[in-house]
């Protein structure tokens, strides 16, 4: 009986959540609730963990302070809103995740297989937190940046697999419409989805960067996922980031459903 009441209550709550509509408002409410009950947010805990990792010495004896995230060694303020960008030292376009891996391997001396994904995410949370309140400033100055942008745009509009899926098919054609719990975000336009990641997802207790989010888009629709740190993910990222240039980062890491 009790169980039935519980289930009934849960259904009612889910119903209320849906009726409330705006998922961003709901996320804010959940955040308040969590803050009141535990006194600290998961995002804060992960940022703190990232900071600790940032100051940890690698096999080379160096911390990540010896790494250049684009604005000079040790500078973190505002670096994340300028990523992805081309780096002269690697001759590649890198996003926040990729640059962290580069720094851990090239500067700190870790072997690629020693780089843990959870550590990269925590570091991304910490570094991104230093760009809260700033505007996206991704630019297309180098040929490599422009080529990846063009590839990202094509990938965004592609139709593939047995379900004919494609990003634009939902995130352009059906913005605001709902399939499942949430309505489709206008990722290239008013929702500025690029500014929502990295984020903590309270609905399933996950810490994700945009890399994880893109992989989930494919995976949720039964499409093979692009590998982490791969070029297609990077291409989609630079396309979306550039489309969202000028958008202000409300809070990094974000707190989402």
């Amino acid at each position, binding site marked *: 009986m009790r169980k039935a009441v519980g289930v009934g209550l849960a259904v009612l709550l889910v119903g209320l959540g*849906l009726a409330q509509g705006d998922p961003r408002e709901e996320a804010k409410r959940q955040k308040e609730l969590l803050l009141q009950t535990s006194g600290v947010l998961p995002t804060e805990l992960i940022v703190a963990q990232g900071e600790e990792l940032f100051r940890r010495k690698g096999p080379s004896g160096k911390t990540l302070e010896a790494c250049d995230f684009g604005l000079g060694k040790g500078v973190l303020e505002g670096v994340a809103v300028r990523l992805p960008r081309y780096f002269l030292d690697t001759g590649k376009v890198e996003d926040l995740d990729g640059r962290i891996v580069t720094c851990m391997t090239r500067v700190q001396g870790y072997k690629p297989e020693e780089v843990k994904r959870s550590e990269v995410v925590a570091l991304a949370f910490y570094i991104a937190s230093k760009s809260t309140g700033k505007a996206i400033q991704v630019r297309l100055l180098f040929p490599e940046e422009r080529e990846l942008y063009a*590839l990202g745009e*094509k*990938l965004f*509009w*592609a*139709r*593939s*697999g*047995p*379900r*004919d899926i*494609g990003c*634009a*098919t*939902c995130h352009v*054609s*059906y913005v605001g*419409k*709902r*399939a*499942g719990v949430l309505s*489709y975000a206008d990722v290239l336009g008013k929702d500025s989805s690029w500014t929502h990641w990295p984020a903590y997802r309270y609905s399933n207790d996950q810490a994700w960067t945009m890399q994880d989010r893109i992989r989930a888009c*494919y995976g949720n629709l039964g*499409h*093979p*996922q*692009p*590998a982490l740190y*791969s*070029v*297609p*993910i990077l*291409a989609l990222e630079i396309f979306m980031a550039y489309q969202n240039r000028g958008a202000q980062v409300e809070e990094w890491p974000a707190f989402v459903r």
Partner: protein
Amino acid sequence: MRKVALVPLALALAFAFAQRYFSEEELKRIQTGGKAYAEVLANPRPDQALCALHRNRLPGDLLPKFLEEQRALIKYPTSGRLMGDWKRGGAIFNNLQKANCFSCHFGSPVHLGGDVGPSLEKYGLKRGQSEVVQRYTYEVIYNSWAYFPCSVMYRFGAQGLLTPEEIADVVAYLLDPESDFNTRPAVGSK
């Protein structure tokens, strides 16, 4: 003479490349995404490439041929019956892993529906069960692109996601006046 013979060949090659959505250089980059991912993206069907190229809005002059090709993909149950077993159809309609119809369409008495597609609430009661309605419903589910080119709706039959018999079951679920879909209220209905 030789030169003349080369012209059609060059044209054919140009056409073959024009049909490709990604360049060779781009495909190499896509390969870093892994084998399974790259294989799917490297081998789009010509109709998928066409939709992508035109950003899901085909120019009018391409439509007649496109629609004709999509229609040609539609196959029917060997029994010839377009309405199967509505109970089996309901299990397909309401299964997230199977057809997942409810996620986009409102009207299911089992799950709250979405609004990406049109509402199908009491579909059979509103449309009746005439041969024309059965055929239209079957064909849209079998190959949505034969009616709505480049639509987001899965091409269940044309892409092999459901068999003709399974699609006939879903048609019955939507149309049969005895079906739960038509006798029970849709979740979320006012």
